[in-house]
């Protein structure tokens, strides 16, 4: 994926990923699936789903928000499938990124651009 958000935000995203992975390499296109709408009319509530069979944890980042952190799902021993859905805020059109920590200690990355008609961080 091509990363062209505004400079400071890209750095914050890179930092957040490095903190999660401890600087380990990321692979693309593995078991991790990130599902998000291509177009969201309302950035206040954008449905997303992550699914990564065998993952221990999945980090979600919104690269174009004032703070890219969205949340992290940690799957416990009774997790029936390493998937979860939620609704997130997007300040504008941007890439949503998911990073999965797999049980073998490797990391996978997936991203999807969401075009936002009305931003979700305003005030």
């Amino acid at each position, binding site marked *: 994926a091509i990363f062209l958000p505004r400079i400071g935000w890209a750095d914050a995203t890179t930092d957040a990923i490095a903190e999660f992975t401890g600087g380990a390499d990321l692979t693309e296109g593995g078991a991790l699936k990130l599902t998000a709408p291509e177009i969201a009319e309302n950035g*206040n*509530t*954008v449905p997303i789903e992550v699914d990564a069979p065998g993952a221990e944890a999945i980090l979600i980042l*919104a690269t174009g*928000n*004032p*703070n890219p*952190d*969205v*949340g*992290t*799902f*940690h*799957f*416990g*021993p*009774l*997790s*029936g*499938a390493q*998937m*979860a*859905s*939620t*609704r*997130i*805020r*997007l300040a504008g059109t941007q890439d949503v990124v998911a990073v999965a920590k797999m049980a073998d200690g490797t990391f996978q990355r997936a991203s999807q651009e969401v075009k936002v008609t009305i931003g*979700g*961080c*305003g*005030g």
Partner: protein
Amino acid sequence: MADNVTPRVRVPSSASAGEDITIKTLISHPMESGQRKDKEGNTIPRSIINRFVTTFNGETVIDVTMEPAISTNPYFEFVSKVPESGTFEFTWYDDDGSVYTESKDITVE
């Protein structure tokens, strides 16, 4: 302090042995992001739920770290194993120290 915080959880009342079940949770909460300003231009302080945990008979199903980018009235859907009959406990942790809980029993047939 968030007012009228009400958790809602959907869990099937029974499951067959070895079946994984889908759980849906919603909690009414403004999730004030700390980014917004009031009419006078003053920043409205952050006030969010920052963590959500589900356990079954004391073992963790999912543990979610939450940031202000989670929408108002946080919603989660996920899948749980149900190795035996028992009780799900759902816990939400608020920035202000409040803890909201809900529990649901399930019977394995």
